[in-house]
């Protein structure tokens, strides 16, 4: 009897039981989340084995046969497709450039807003530049087509002035600049907010001291403001590196058209997978899953690498 009691109070299993009993409502609250993540995130992870199988939609994953070359047939075929390499190249070009451009744009925007001195101007300007963030790319694409697209303003003006109408959205050379500039147009204001918050935390005494020393405004920005936002900037840059291979499906999908796809400048991995498996044909299901897995794995490696590098450099990691 005595012995039993001692076991009861000391056994770790019993402790777990008691704690679970005490927090039964918390467990109840977390159960939907566990189910949700298992179904909507972990089942798709299990579905990755499609990449190693000859699977078609509507059949059973388990019973469908393994792909040839001991399961790696889908990868072999995909890696021999020029379209895959073109999509990968575009993804890297668009992903990396967008990362750097939006990084610089956000900081510049924050500096400009921070330097505006009239409160009314500062507030209205910030309201205006933040607004496009809340529109979908569908709408932004509509607005852009209306200016640069076929039957847009540029088209109409060139038609009226020299007779040859120009539709810039179908011009392959114009595609990347358009992607970058619309990205700035839509997101720069929003991304600048986080830097503005950091700038708001800079002690005014630093600027006062610089004033006394006769520093110009540029010197104050260079020696006080920029160093103050450096840690935030580095952290945000690191965080965004994991997303390089997701170069922005929404934006590209709404802004590309057959002309630029044909020219091979527009397709990114995500649009390539979607267009050639769901929307029309070109890839088998297994091949589409293989491209998707390739993207997920590379992104994951990027995140881990960046995290390690950040920790080595003494920054706060993300994992």
């Amino acid at each position, binding site marked *: 009897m005595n012995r039993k009691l001692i076991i009861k109070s000391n056994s770790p299993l019993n402790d777990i039981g008691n704690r679970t009993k005490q927090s039964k409502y918390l467990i109840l609250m977390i159960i939907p989340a566990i189910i949700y993540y298992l179904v909507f995130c972990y089942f798709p992870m299990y579905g990755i084995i499609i990449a190693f199988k000859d699977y078609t939609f*509507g059949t059973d994953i388990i019973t469908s046969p393994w792909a040839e070359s001991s399961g790696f047939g889908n990868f072999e075929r995909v890696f021999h497709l020029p379209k895959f390499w073109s999509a990968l190249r575009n993804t890297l070009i668009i992903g990396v450039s967008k990362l750097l451009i939006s990084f610089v744009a956000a900081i510049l925007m924050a500096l400009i807003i921070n330097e505006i001195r009239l409160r009314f101007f*500062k507030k209205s300007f910030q309201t205006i530049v933040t607004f496009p963030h809340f529109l979908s790319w569908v709408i932004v694409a509509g607005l852009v087509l209306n200016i640069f697209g076929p039957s847009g303003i540029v088209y109409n003006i060139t038609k009226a002035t020299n007779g040859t109408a120009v539709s810039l959205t179908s011009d392959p050379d114009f595609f990347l600049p358009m992607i970058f500039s619309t990205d700035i147009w839509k997101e720069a204001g929003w991304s600048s907010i986080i830097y503005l918050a950091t700038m708001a935390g800079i002690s005014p005494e630093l600027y006062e001291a610089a004033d006394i020393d006769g520093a110009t405004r540029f010197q104050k920005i260079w020696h006080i403001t920029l160093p103050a936002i450096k840690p935030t900037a580095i952290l945000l840059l690191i965080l965004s590196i994991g997303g390089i291979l997701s170069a922005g499906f929404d934006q590209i999908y709404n802004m590309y058209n057959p002309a630029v796809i044909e020219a091979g400048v527009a397709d990114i991995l995500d649009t390539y997978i979607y267009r050639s498996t769901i929307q029309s044909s070109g890839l088998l299901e297994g091949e589409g899953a293989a491209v998707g897995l390739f993207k997920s794995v590379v992104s994951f490696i990027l995140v881990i690498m960046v995290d390690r590098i950040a920790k080595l450099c003494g920054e706060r990691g993300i994992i």
Partner: protein
Amino acid sequence: MRKFNDINYLPLRAKGSTFDSKVGTMDWVLFVLMFIYGLIIIYPFYNAFLISISPAEVYNTTPFLLYPKGVTWDNYAAVFKDSEFMGGLKITLILLFAGTAYQMFFTVITGYALSRNRWVGKNFVMNMILVTMFFGGGLIPYVVLINKLNLANTLAVLIIPGAIDTYNMLLMRNYFASLPPDLEESAKIDGANDLQIFYKVYLPMSLPMLATIGLFFAVGNWNSWYNAMLFIKDPELRPLQYVLQLKITQASSQVDNLIIDDKFSKEGLKMASVFFTIVPMMCFYPFLQKFFVKGLVVGAIKG
């Protein structure tokens, strides 16, 4: 010092680097920059609006309008009469209310459960959730899943997969975790259970954060088209943004059926639909801006 819990703590109050009241060259340069960039942001909206109110003959004869020459509301009338568009609006409104409520419910309870440390397995569940932020199955397995669940081509596919947004959930979790734990202790002593503590103590204290997250969800629902594009085949189940996308980007333009006579231009109708979709956002945005800003700032600093 202001706390982040204070809704008035906004970067809008950033001080800048200069205290001198004299207006210098730099101020003028800034003013010009600001003016030009502001115009670049505003012009596409203005242009869309201008085309949407221009009569077809004006639009067809003048390539470039700077100010309205003749005003007509026919395009908007046509959009209001368009059954596809109004059907889309109906679906989007359902998403906006039902979807937002559903997402809020699951995201908030998950955030709360994860903000309490007592229960066994919390770290495991937390890690299980964090992994999904960095690794996913990709499109094909997702499509297979939706088909297996028989959700394809139903209204439910637009709502159910969005139950928990990990980012917003973590925002909520961090907010709950930042509230003083003494509250929970004293409620416990008074005999309240975890559900009561959550509902009666923590929820009422989190209204600003709930509003912020609710608005993020609402905007997401208003703008959602991706799941519809993947899974909705039935034209009557298309949400607004997807209807709009088909009208704008499809080569065989869907506005053709609206052009009953010369009174309408294709562009005018398109821009009326676009503008119609922007207006609600434009009306609400200035009032809600501070909530959005707060969500971003709190999330980035603590998350």
